[in-house]
């Protein structure tokens, strides 16, 4: 058992100095490979505690239109698994990196091969939204051997029975999906329902609990911390800025600084 990734993530939660750790999601290779590295570095410098880095997939079912479009553009701009992992390696020298991608990318060259490559790149964790608990044993074993924390997700629809199983297998943190639906900016927060969901999550796991999907503004990030989240994940808003602004790194850095201030 290799716990290098888990330890680095635990230290990032413990040492954030904020009410909740801030975890920007960024798309690897978007708008291009060099750009994604600059944007990730800007997020780290602006107060991010960890970075969730997407490896683009052609058919990202858990993602809404902004991240789907970013994945399509990244692939068209030449992003491959290997090149995005080079970006991950450069970022991991500065900040803990958690890779998010889909099951078909993980199994394409073999689960063990993929997890070993993540470890070589210095990546700390892995999130696979279309890997169900029942099919995850092999990936969990390979991750444990490679020192990568395999971070599972739960949603508002997750039953109590499944939550117990998933919470017990969670490593690094437990990713709580705040809404039933895909990633994307939403104008409202879940309020009491999210607070109750976070309480259920805490009671089912020993690791920190992070909230994501639908969080885009500093107010929403602060509300997530108030509701009991140990970590806050912001994705589509930042990916949109990375693609729209002429200086994506400056735009993302500015937004991350605002989010970090709201969590101070």
């Amino acid at each position, binding site marked *: 058992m290799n716990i290098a990734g888990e330890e680095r993530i635990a230290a990032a939660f413990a040492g954030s100095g904020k009410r909740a750790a801030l975890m920007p999601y960024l798309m690897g290779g978007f708008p291009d490979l060099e750009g994604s590295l600059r944007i990730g570095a800007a997020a780290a410098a602006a107060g991010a505690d960890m970075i969730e880095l997407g490896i683009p997939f052609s058919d990202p079912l858990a993602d809404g239109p902004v991240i789907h479009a970013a994945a399509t553009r990244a692939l068209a701009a030449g992003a491959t698994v290997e090149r995005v992992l080079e970006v991950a390696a450069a970022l991991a020298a500065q900040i803990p990196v958690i890779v998010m991608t889909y099951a078909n990318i993980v199994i394409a060259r073999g689960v063990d091969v993929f997890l070993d490559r993540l470890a070589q790149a210095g990546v700390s964790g892995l999130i696979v939204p*279309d890997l169900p608990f029942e099919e995850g044993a092999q990936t969990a074993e390979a991750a444990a051997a490679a020192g990568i924390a395999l971070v599972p997700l739960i*949603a508002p629809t997750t039953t109590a029975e499944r939550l117990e199983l998933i919470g017990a297998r969670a490593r690094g943190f437990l990713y709580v999906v705040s809404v039933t639906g895909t990633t994307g900016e939403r104008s409202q927060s879940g309020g009491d329902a999210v607070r109750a969901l976070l309480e259920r999550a805490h009671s089912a796991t020993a690791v920190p609990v992070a909230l994501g999907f639908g969080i885009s503004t500093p107010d929403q990030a602060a509300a997530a911390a108030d509701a009991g989240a140990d970590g806050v994940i912001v994705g589509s808003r930042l990916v949109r800025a990375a693609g729209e602004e002429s200086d994506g790194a400056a735009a993302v850095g500015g937004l991350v600084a605002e989010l970090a201030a709201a969590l101070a």
Partner: protein
Amino acid sequence: MSRAAFASALVVFAVVAPSGAAARAGVAQPLAVLLRDFAGRPTPLYEARRLSERAGRPVFLKREDLNHTGSHKLNNALGQALLAKRMGKPRAIAETGAGQHGVAAATACALLGLECVVFMGEEDIRRQQPNVQRMHLLGARVEPVTAGKRTLKEASSAAIRDWVANVETTHYIIGSAVGPAPYPAIVRELQRTLGDEARAQLLDRTGRLPSRVIACVGGGSNSIGIFAAFIDDPDVELIGVEAAGEGIETGRHGAPLTVGGRAGVLHGSMSAVLADEDGQILEAHSVSAGLDYPGSGPEHAYLRDSGRARYVAVTDEQALDTFVAVAALEGIIPALESSHAIAWALENAGGDMDLICLSGRGDKDLAEVLALRAIG
């Protein structure tokens, strides 16, 4: 590939759905009545005499083209719409490629009073206008999908995203034997009606089983439905016919089971999938919208790997030629999808009796075929 590999589902789909057999049992009685009185089942088993002469052996066609709405798709749509009612969900969604499943879902929803939204790629909307108009007439909303190549793969993704967001009120009537568990089993159980009928009809008519059972495979619902009835008959060869498109060697095809390769995960199940070395899903190519899909039903991959069924492919050209030939020889205009199965049977000798699933009628394909073939 193990049976365990069937059961892949997005974590975010924490939906409790009944298993395949339980699903059919739960709605069995009302479904049987609707299949008989509304759909017009059982559909005939027809001995196609002139095709038999050409093939040199008896060729029997299971006439799903004579099912209400013109294809086998209604068998599944009626069953799943009843499930939606039973689960208390007022809204149903569906994906469609050729439009046959979209029409079937819209029909079942009209019958049972469910709101219906059908996701359809823009390219398929262009090539299947008559079916789009039928869906509108049946009260469904057709939601155009503009991502990617704008065909079945993207329509399926759009439907799954809608389902994830609206799962409390919405049932996803998936149209093929694909998707997260237990969908492949639900669709197989609902489609095996056609296989069970064909087996009983053939035994009644000829006193024997066929040498070969032949059906086209896109996602693979008509084929798994007819195969299911013969899986325990070891002497009956099961042959699934995929789309070779412009030719397997060109890479522009829809034949993941035929070409083999590493298993992949698409739309929540593990099966044969067209993908590159990194695992990115590749686009499929077929003149037939219903076979234009880079994935395949997981049970087909299992039947292939266990050796119980074999999978072959037929090109666009061969399917188009057969479409025209069957119309002239038999007075039946077959769907382009079904034309693939008939084309393979005509061109490949073997055994002494073929049972072919004629999964749907080809009226929807007339404009496409006329654009590619000079007729008359």
